[in-house]
């Protein structure tokens, strides 16, 4: 954990001297192997043969000086959250039910990263289907590199864990539904960049909740995360919700920022102190105001969990033990019996709970009171954000109310207490607003994240501001 140079610096060097790529890749592979021996569980799937083939191809690009050689990520190892499809590599969203599934195609983000000269290094661990805040709802639970008895955060836990763990030049593609990029970035001392809903194609993502899912970037700093976001954003005809905009890391002026006081209320005092200190240091550069988002603070979690579980329960309905993933024997079985058997045996507890909650919220007689109401409340909450943005360029507050918790403490939480940990990350996610979490400082030895939120499609403001913060 001590690299200061950016990925861009590495790419410039690699274009002059290919041995830089070789050395860095060897370092990254070694870190995967050592982390696996130590059971740190950042990596879900690593195929050395596939990586060496990509390396050989890249060597040809170096000689030919082709498009990949000129790409933004030339020679950079990129890890991919397990929920994102990589051609020929087992992709199972951290779930037993998709065991053995090897996609026949690359997700758009993976294809884009490859086209920019990246080496697709490995799949990273996560909560099953993204259902969690601590990456504990899966078989391989990643351990925080700062303290192995603590969580990496979730659901993109392996992505942030490995980013913090390896000294090699590397970036990670993560995915956020309710905070799954920001939370692990905060707990692991990384910079997580979640874009506006629709800025990055979701084609090839194993969905959690379609109106909330956003693929984004986790890196060591804002430069690395922004470079990756530049590479993977942009319109994609294969995703019907894809926007026509892309992202370029360019500086724009930032004058006013506002601290959202409601999101400090339930924070641990150490976290508050670290974030407050960071905010005080920013007063030299910006006008710092204070705002309140009372509706978001009170209702965002409820609306989010209704929408997320409703959408998740319909998405997971397709997983029934036919054509791909886990499959059994169908002889003599009625389809109800077969589907129930496969699903009951292969979904984990949290997946079952969310399927039940979502199915319940959509049931005849309940749909209007829960699902439709939550969608109306979402409009209200977006309006509340937009009002705050009329006077301010950005909103800031702590990313998580606590530092990475110990596994023994996570076990004691009820599902509702667990969901409440998403208090600060859910509002921006529900509203589809772009946000960045970067490190504000440390409480003891553990990193504390600062969250910054911008209006829709104003990622440049986040880039410009995070540069000053870091």
């Amino acid at each position: 954990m001590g690299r200061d140079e950016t990925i861009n610096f590495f790419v410039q060097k690699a274009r002059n001297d290919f041995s830089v790529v070789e050395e860095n890749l060897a370092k990254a592979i070694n870190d995967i192997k050592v982390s696996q021996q130590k059971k740190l569980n950042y990596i879900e799937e690593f195929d050395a043969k596939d990586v060496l083939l990509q390396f050989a191809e890249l060597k040809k690009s170096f000689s030919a000086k082709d498009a990949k050689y000129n790409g933004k990520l030339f020679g950079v190892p990129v890890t991919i959250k397990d929920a994102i499809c990589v051609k020929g590599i087992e992709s199972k969203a951290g779930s037993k039910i998709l065991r053995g599934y090897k996609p026949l195609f690359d997700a758009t983000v993976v294809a884009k990263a490859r086209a920019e000269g990246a080496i697709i290094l490995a799949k990273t661990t996560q909560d099953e289907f993204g259902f969690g805040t601590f990456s504990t709802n899966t078989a391989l639970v990643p351990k925080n590199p700062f303290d192995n008895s603590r969580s990496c955060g979730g659901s993109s836990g392996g992505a942030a864990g490995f980013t913090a763990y390896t000294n090699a030049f590397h970036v990670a593609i993560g995915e956020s539904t309710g905070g799954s990029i920001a939370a692990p970035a905060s707990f692991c001392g990384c910079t997580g960049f979640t874009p506006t809903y629709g800025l990055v194609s979701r084609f090839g993502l194993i969905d959690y909740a379609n109106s909330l899912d956003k693929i984004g970037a986790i890196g060591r700093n804002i430069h690395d995360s922004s470079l990756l976001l530049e590479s993977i954003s942009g319109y994609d005809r294969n995703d019907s919700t894809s926007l026509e905009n892309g992202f370029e890391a360019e500086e724009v002026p930032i004058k006013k920022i506002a601290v959202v006081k409601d999101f400090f209320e339930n924070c641990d005092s150490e976290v508050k102190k670290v974030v407050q200190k960071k905010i005080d240091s920013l007063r030299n550069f910006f006008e710092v105001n204070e705002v309140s988002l009372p509706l978001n603070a009170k209702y965002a979690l409820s609306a989010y969990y209704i929408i997320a579980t409703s959408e998740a329960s319909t998405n997971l309905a397709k997983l029934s033990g036919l054509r791909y993933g886990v499959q059994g024997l169908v002889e003599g079985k009625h389809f109800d019996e077969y589907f129930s058997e496969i699903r009951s045996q292969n979904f984990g507890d949290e997946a079952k709970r969310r399927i039940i909650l979502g199915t319940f919220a959509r049931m005849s007689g309940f749909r209007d009171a829960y699902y439709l109401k939550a969608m109306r409340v979402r409009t209200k909450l977006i309006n509340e954000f937009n009002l705050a943005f009329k006077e301010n360029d950005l909103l800031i507050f702590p990313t998580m109310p606590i530092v990475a918790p110990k596994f023994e403490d996570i076990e004691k939480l009820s599902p509702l207490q667990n969901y409440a940990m998403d208090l600060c990350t859910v509002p921006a996610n529900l509203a589809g607003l772009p946000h960045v979490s970067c490190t504000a400082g440390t409480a003891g030895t553990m990193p504390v994240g600062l969250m910054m939120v911008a209006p829709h499609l104003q990622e440049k403001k986040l880039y410009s501001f995070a540069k000053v913060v870091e």
Partner: protein
Amino acid sequence: MSDIAVDKDLIRRVAKNARLSLTEEELEKFVPQIKEVVLDSFNKLDEIDAKEEPSFQPVVVKNRFRKDVPKKSLELEDVFKNASPKLRENNYFKGPKVL
């Protein structure tokens, strides 16, 4: 929706609709957990009046139409690549009976 009784019967029924068969042990564990989420979180929206148009997406997503042009589809062997050989019969997927 504060008058809903979240009990074993309801959860069993909902689970059945979602093609999940829960063991007694799972029911014992899940019922109080789900009850807590529904009563303390989901039902909280009863407090707030919301007449706004629903946001089915957080940003405005336009309908885009493309020309209906046939494209080459997957090769037959690729289609079966992820299927268990036990669930393939000639060029068909074998499934459980529906009647």
